[in-house]
């Protein structure tokens, strides 16, 4: 199967709707097909990868830890829109430290999160073959 550039666009807060967890499941499945997968976090989607999520009050599973496994799945292009973070008073420090190990560089841990502005994000999106929005 030919490799295609897939981007999954996440725009919704992690809880309250099923979009975030459904997106994550599709992302994990897509990794099994050896595709070139990247993720975009825009609007309230940036909350999906914030630190210190606690779901005890809403009786739902806290699936935020699963984003830390993305590196193991060779998914290491997580683009976060700078404006979306700023509009919510967030910075990179409010996001989880998501990394991947580069096998070709003595397993060095490298950051998976890339902060990009709106213009750069639209360029990255235009470069994709498949864009799936959640």
């Amino acid at each position, binding site marked *: 199967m030919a490799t295609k550039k897939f981007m999954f666009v996440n725009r919704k807060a992690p809880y309250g709707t099923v979009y975030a967890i459904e997106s994550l499941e599709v992302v*994990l499945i897509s990794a099994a097909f050896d595709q070139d997968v990247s993720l975009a976090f825009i609007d309230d989607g940036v909350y999906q990868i914030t630190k210190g999520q606690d779901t005890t009050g809403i009786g739902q599973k806290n*699936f935020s830890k*699963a984003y830390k*496994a993305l590196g*193991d*799945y060779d998914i290491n292009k997580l683009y976060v829109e700078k404006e979306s973070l700023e509009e919510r008073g967030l910075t990179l420090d409010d996001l989880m430290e998501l990394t991947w190990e580069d096998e070709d560089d003595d397993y060095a841990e490298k950051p998976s999160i890339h902060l990009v502005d709106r213009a750069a994000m639209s360029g990255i999106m235009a470069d994709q073959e498949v864009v799936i929005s959640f």
Partner: protein
Amino acid sequence: MALEVNGSTIEQDEEGYLVDLSSWTPDIATALAAEEDVELSEEHWDIINFLREYYEEYQIAPAVRVLTKAVGKRLGKDKGNSKYLYSLFPYGPGKQACKYAGLPKPTGCV
């Protein structure tokens, strides 16, 4: 489906996975394996315990490819290959080992 273990009834879904993941005990793993005529060896337990730790940390059951890589890193290269894992879990290391470990079926596993 349901399973009797030490006098209590353990609920399973239609494929044999535990309905309540928190109800898992090592005895349940032994019973689930016995249902498929498998006797759990120390090598099986290494993988089962590894999967439980992985789930605790990431809240997902890893895909086979990820499991293989992670086992290689943790338990040594001789164990981090599909030949070894399939020799222990012939029905598929993801599917079968996750079932005994009381995890959900790996995402993307059919």
